[in-house]
Structure formats: C-alpha cells, structure tokens
C-alpha cells in the first residue's frame, strides 16, 4: 500500500465532499463562475459521479459585465462537457442599467452579483450550493467551514457556524435555510495550477498572456473589453501583453503585465512575484475586511 500524494489526497477529499453533500441534499446546485477554480470544481464533480452524470445543474450568475471570452468559454465548456447550465442575471438591475462606473464597485457588486445570486437561489429553492472558494484565498475565508450554513436570508454569520469535526459534515437545514459547500477548501493556488496541468483541464484563455487593449486605473491595468467601457477624458487604450490572475467583471478586474503563455510560466511568475491572488480584484479593496462584509451579505 502506497501513501497517497498530497494532491491525490485533496482530490479524494473533494470527491468525498461532493458525494456526501449529494447524499444529504434534496435540491443541490453548483455555482459556476467560469474561472479556473470552477473548471477544477466541475472536473472533481465529474469524477465523483463517474460513470454517471452530474446529479445537479450549474448556475452562473451573469453580472452582464463579464469578459466576452468568459461567456464564450462557458458556453463551449458546458456544451462539450454536457453540463446543464442555468444562467441568471438581475433583470431589474439590467433594465435600470446598473453598471460599475455610475454605481461604484460596491453597489454594483451588491445589485448585479449578490442580489442576483440570492434571487436565483431563492427561485431554484436550492438547499445546497457548491462553490469553488478556497481557504488560502483571503483572510476571512481561512475560517470558513467546508459546509457553511446560511440562514433563511442566505446570510453567513461567523458566530453561528456549525462545528465541523473529522469528515462528518452536517447539511441538515430547515425550510428556506441552506448550506454552501466548498470542496476546494484545502486547495492552494499551486495545487489548482498543478491539477489543471496534469488533468489537462480547459481554462479561459484570459489566464494566459496576450496583447490586449488596456487602460491604467488606480495602479491596475483594466482591459477595454467592449464599447461599454467608459474612458476618462484623455484616456486612450494601449495594447499591452497582459494576463489575468482572477476573472470577474472586466471593469473591476486588473490585469498584470506578463509574458506567461503556459501554466509553467504562470507558476514561475507566481513564485517570483508573490503578490497574492485577489489583490487584482478591485472589490476586495473597498476597505479593510471588505470581503468579510460581502460574505455576510450573501456574496460568495
């Protein structure tokens, strides 16, 4: 009997979590964000139920401001992998033209992401939702449970979380309450990259460096992805070879200058640069503890 490598241990743990959650849930859903962690999440789910199909659908919250390449990737990925996808947008927000420029990142995120997610979860009456969050991403997530309880307002209360011992998870909820389940809790960024590499998991091309039109805003390179991008007076897009460490809404996601076109090159850069992953997300910089605040309100 050989000892399982750490990455295969993480894989086994994630598969265990998927199966356990499905055995407890009435109506599960997988929150799909198109990013690299979501790609890994889907692969692990497929492994957990192989040779069967996924016993749940994917839900994507489309804030309407995602990179075009993300949406194209999503549709291709879901059709190739034969995944059932539900796309939800906050239609009221869309009709009112809510955008990150006029409303600010905080309010925009609340309306187009948090509120949209809550609407979709309520409409679907899901009692369990898988997500791709990892504990090493951000300080407030280090204490997140694998099975994270949400009250009937879908809110997270750090003081009212269930103790989680061994690998015994408790997904029992009363009507309207739910749990969010994070099978990637114990994965680090390096684990994710290596897994994508050895499993040949498809990811959005935006992760790799390419010449892209960008403008500089508050020390970050913001990509001009479509004609809706508001340019300040005197601001002119320039072409730079950049890539993205995380993907979100294009006006809120900073690119980094990079020549990395392979996973190996990305990891090599990561080791040298050592700037933590979420620092290119504008929404995390709304103030100290801002991620924790968003989580309390129901943001993933």
């Amino acid at each position, binding site marked *: *009997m050989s*000892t*399982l490598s*750490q*990455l*295969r*241990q993480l*894989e*086994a743990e994630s*598969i*265990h979590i998927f*199966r*356990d959650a*499905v*055995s407890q849930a009435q109506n599960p859903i997988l929150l799909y964000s198109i990013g690299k962690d979501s790609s890994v999440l889907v692969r692990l789910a*497929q*492994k*957990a*139920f*192989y*040779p*069967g*199909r996924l016993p749940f659908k994917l839900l994507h919250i489309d804030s309407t401001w995602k990179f075009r390449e993300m949406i194209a990737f999503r549709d291709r990925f879901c059709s190739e992998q034969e995944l059932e996808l539900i796309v939800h947008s906050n239609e009221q927000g869309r009709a009112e033209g809510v955008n990150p420029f006029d409303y600010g990142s905080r309010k925009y995120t609340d309306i187009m992401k948090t509120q949209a997610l809550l609407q979709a979860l309520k409409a679907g009456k899901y009692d369990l939702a898988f997500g791709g969050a990892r*504990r*090493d991403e951000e*300080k*407030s*997530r*280090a*204490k997140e449970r694998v099975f994270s309880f949400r009250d009937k307002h879908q809110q997270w209360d*750090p*003081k009212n979380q*269930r*103790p989680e*011992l*061994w*690998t*015994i998870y*408790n997904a*029992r*909820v*009363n009507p309207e*309450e739910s749990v969010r389940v994070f099978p990637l*809790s*114990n994965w680090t960024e*390096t*684990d994710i990259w*290596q897994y994508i*590499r050895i499993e040949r998991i498809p990811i959005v091309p935006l992760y790799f460096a390419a010449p892209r039109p960008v403008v500089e805003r508050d020390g970050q390179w913001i990509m001009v992805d479509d004609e809706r991008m508001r340019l300040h007076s005197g601001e002119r897009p320039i072409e730079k070879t950049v890539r993205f460490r995380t993907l979100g809404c294009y006006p809120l996601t900073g690119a980094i200058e990079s020549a990395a076109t392979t996973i*190996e*090159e990305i*990891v*090599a850069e990561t*080791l040298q640069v*050592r*700037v*933590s992953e979420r620092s290119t997300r504008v929404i995390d910089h709304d103030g*100290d*503890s801002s991620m*924790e605040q968003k989580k309390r309100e129901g943001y993933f």
Partner: protein
Amino acid sequence: MSAIDTYLNEHENKNLLRFITCGSVDDGKSTLIGRLLFDSKLIYEDQLSSLQDASDKNGTTGAGEIDYALLLDGLKAEREQGITIDVAYRYFSTPQRKFIIADTPGHEQYTRNMATGASTANLAIILIDARYGVVTQTRRHAFIASLLGIKHLLVAVNKMDISGYSEETFLMIRQSFSDFAQKLDIPDVRFVPISALKGTNVVRRSPELTPWYAGQSLLELLETVDLSQDLNTRDFRFPVQVVIRPNLNFRGFAGTVASGVIKPGDKIRVLPSNRTSVVKRIVTSDGDLQEASAPQAVTLELTDEVDISSGDMIVHDINLPRVKDRFEAVVIWMSETPLRAGAHYLIRHAGRFVKARVEALLYGVDVNTMEQVSVQELPLNGIGRIVVETTQPLFFDPYSENRATGSLIFVDPISNATSGAAMITDTVFIDHDTPRAVSDAAGLLRDHVERREFYWETGLVSAKDRLLRNRHIGKTVIIIGESAQAVQAFGKELERRLFRLNLNSYFLGFSSLSRGLASDVRDNRSEHDAEIQRLGELSRILTDAGLIFITALPSADAYTVERLKALNQPNELLVVSLGELSGRAVPVTITVGEHVSIEKNVDAVLGLLAEQHVIPDYCI
C-alpha cells in the same frame, strides 16, 4: 524538464501533514505560525504591506516590528478583540511536505474549537512558555489531543530567549511534562526548545544559542515525523455514500475507503442486510484500480445484484465491525443547551443519520485535572462519558482502533445545529440485565414510556390529517365514581352522544379488557398493575388513532390514575368523577353531580371537551 516542471511535480507528490497548534495568546502561538509561513516564503508581498498598516493600528509588538499574530486573525470581531476565537486553517509547504495548520485558540471556553482542529490532525504542537513551564492549560491541551487520538505530540518550549536559553529550564519542563503525559495515550512525544520571536530552532537549528540541544528544529521534526503507522490498514470499512447507476448495465457503490484495503476478488459483506458478494471492479474515472485504501474515493462494482443504499456499509466478509444499538462514548459538548440524560438527538455516523437517545450520563471529566466528576448535565465545552441508544444499530469500531468509524456527531433535531462530537469506546459497562439507576416504580414506568416514545413509529397520516378528516382529535376519558353501575352507564351514554355527533368514540368496559387483552395476566400480586398497563398502552394507541376512547374504572385510585396518565403520554388524560369521592385523593379533571340527570352530566363533559378543543364547539 524545466525547473518549474520539477517544482510542480514535486509539489504534487509531497505527502501531507495536518497539525494543530495549541497555546494561549501569550504563548506566542500566532508568532510561531506567522514565522513558519513567513520563512517558508508564503507571506505574499501585499499581505505584508497591509500587515504593516494594521500593525501600526492594532499591533502589540514594538514599533517597526511586524506583528505576526495580525496576519492570522481572520475575522473583524476577533481582530478588534485581539483574540482568535475560531479554528482557522493555514497552508504552507516545504520541499519535503505540504502542511495544513489548524490554528485554534487556547482559551478555556474554546475546548470545542481545539477538538475540532484536533479531529483531523496527525500531530499537535503544544506551546509552553519557558517562564511558566507546564501549566493547567498545557495539561488541558495535551489531554484533548490524546482524547481525539492524536499520535504525535511536539512540545515546543517557547520564549527560550527570555529564559537565557537555559538547558536546565528546558530539562525541567521536559521532565514535568513527561511525568504528566504518562497518563495519556500518546505514543510519540518530542521536545524542542525554541524562540518563535527570534526564530531559534524553528526552521533551522540554532547551535550557537542552544549548543546543548542535539535534536532537530521544529520544522525538521514536522517534515520527518513518520505517519505510516497511523492509518488502520487492517479493517476494511467502506460507508456507501451514493449509488451510481448511469444505465441498466452498471450499478456502482461510491464512497471513501475509511480504513483497510480492498482488491477485486475480495469477498465482502453488506451491512445491515448481511448479504455477501465479491468485488468485481474498483472503478474510478482514471481507470480501474487493482487495490484501494484509505483515504481513496472510489466506486465498487460487485459480482451480484445486491440491494445497497446510501448509508449502508461494505466490509470484508471475515472482518466485521461492531453492530450495536447501544454503546458508550466520550462526548465533547458544543451546544449552549446542556446535554442531559434522556435527551433525543440525531446522530451522524459513517455517512448516515440515525435517531438516538442519550440513555445515561455516566460522568463528566474535569478537563484540567482529567478526574471524573459526577454531573447532572454537560454544559458547552463539557466532556463526559455517556451511554447512547439508537433506533437502528450503528456499524462501528472503537475510536482507538478506527477514527473514521469510531466518531460521530450529535445534531439537534429541531435547529439541526451540530451539538456535540463523540468518540465511541469499546464496551458498554452498563448491561441490559443489570438494574437501571431508577429508584421506584414511577421511575421505571417513566423510563419505559420514554423508551416506547423513542421507538414509536409513525405512519404517513399525521395527527393533523386525522383532525381535518375527523373534525376532532383523539382523547382518553376515564370515568370513576362510587357506583360502578352509574359509572358504566355514564361512559356508555357519553360514547353514544359523541357518536351521534358524528365523532369517533369507543367505550371499553373493564371486564372486556381483563377477559380479553389482559386475560393472560396471571400473577396475583401485580395482576391489577399489569391490566392497567395494558389499558394504558391501548389508550395511547387509540388516542393516536384519533379516537375518543372512554373507559370506566369505578374504583380507580390515585396510583392507578397516575400510571394511566404516564402511559398515555404524550397525550393528556381526561378524568371524570361521578360524584365526590370518599377517601380517595384522585386527580380529576371534572366532577359531575351524582344526582344530576345523566344527560346534563354528559352535556358538561361535552362542554369541557369543546373547551379543550378536542371536539368542535358547533357540535354542542
């Protein structure tokens, strides 16, 4: 192959050590973790710069120095209080191993958090402040670590810099901890003198400061501790999580190998059905396996069509776990609602929920002295030994032999909160045959009723369904009085009046009972008791069935009525006394006049039934 290829492949193939750090705020625990993360180059630059800002605001270290503790406290409230109040997980790796740290607080009220962190840990670091030596808290941490089955203990004697790197201090602390640790079941205990603040013996050995210490540095110990003996490779246990059936030709049982090893061709047994079969294939999406062991997640296909559902357990045919519905366990209580004997919970064990009742709280354990104490209840963070009874047998091994099948959690059936965690011990010391700790007949009866209600199996028609159909609820009415004849007649008239109101009523005479349902009762001395017991059980059933059940017991005394009351639980009894009773202090619900017309007396009882919402008002 490029350097990055090598790096990534090495990273993938490292093995994993999960450990917990125990110590109080002042022991320098956060500083130690901060240093491990920092020195393994995982504190990213922007985290460092925001840390520098925060240190100026809240830091407790001197100006210019980085407060490592602030790096770790995740949540806002904690940051303001300066105390870590929950379990946080950190990740770092060295070329040798990947590490997951469960960072748990040292405060007394947080036994719960430490137990949580320890439950998944292979090793515990116990921090001792060299200035104070082994203190109460040290003993508490070591005790909880041993309780949770941690096999490797690393005692880090910290703040050696303040103690002048004194060998004598270190040796004294080592001796005093070793004396105490003999009482614990931890096979591997090591000691290392460190200064987390200065980095002495943390990552690298510091012979210039501790020339007398010949051992490895703390990180070297973490990198080399041998975990290969910790897994149970003997007993194959496979709780089935999901049945995978993509088409008619495939039926696979998916789960995680909890312990032991399985190979195709192995003869297996399924619990609880006790059916046997043979493993045909070990299926994974990356191809079939020739062998699977813990903690691999696989899917088993069997050679026979065996009916297996989620929550069943597959084991080797010749190596079975204990199959019991009554067992002892050591529990750590985690709820604000104290644990009391008689309480009902759900248990989650080996992938399924089972109804359970805490039959007895044998004793509590003082976490500081490890002494047994007699307790009536276990509060939040209390530790104690209990006897648990379940509605279906659990398939378990003692926790000391198998962490996966010997552990369980208690779940509150109303709020669904996780209320406690327990480790199953080997045997039940209280046997079924020995008398229970109940002093009197009333206690025995209470115990019986509690047990009966625990096992009471309800159908799919609820009491509310019956109410909507019948327009009334079930009720047991007992009629007593001086005149046997009048009591009988009254009972029968009540039955008829209710029946005419289209309500479901039934009258049972006592002789019908004693010659029928209770005709096998022979023992003279307890004959009446036994008959009353039958009557009580019958009334419980008929009330549950939604009937208004009437019986006449002219000479019933207080004892009899109390017994019937107890047996009729959870429903309440209605006791009608026909006239005043002489010399009998019976608890009656209503007394009607002996010389009033039978019709008016029945009216009075119907009025009371309507008042109690047993029957609707409009009927009378």
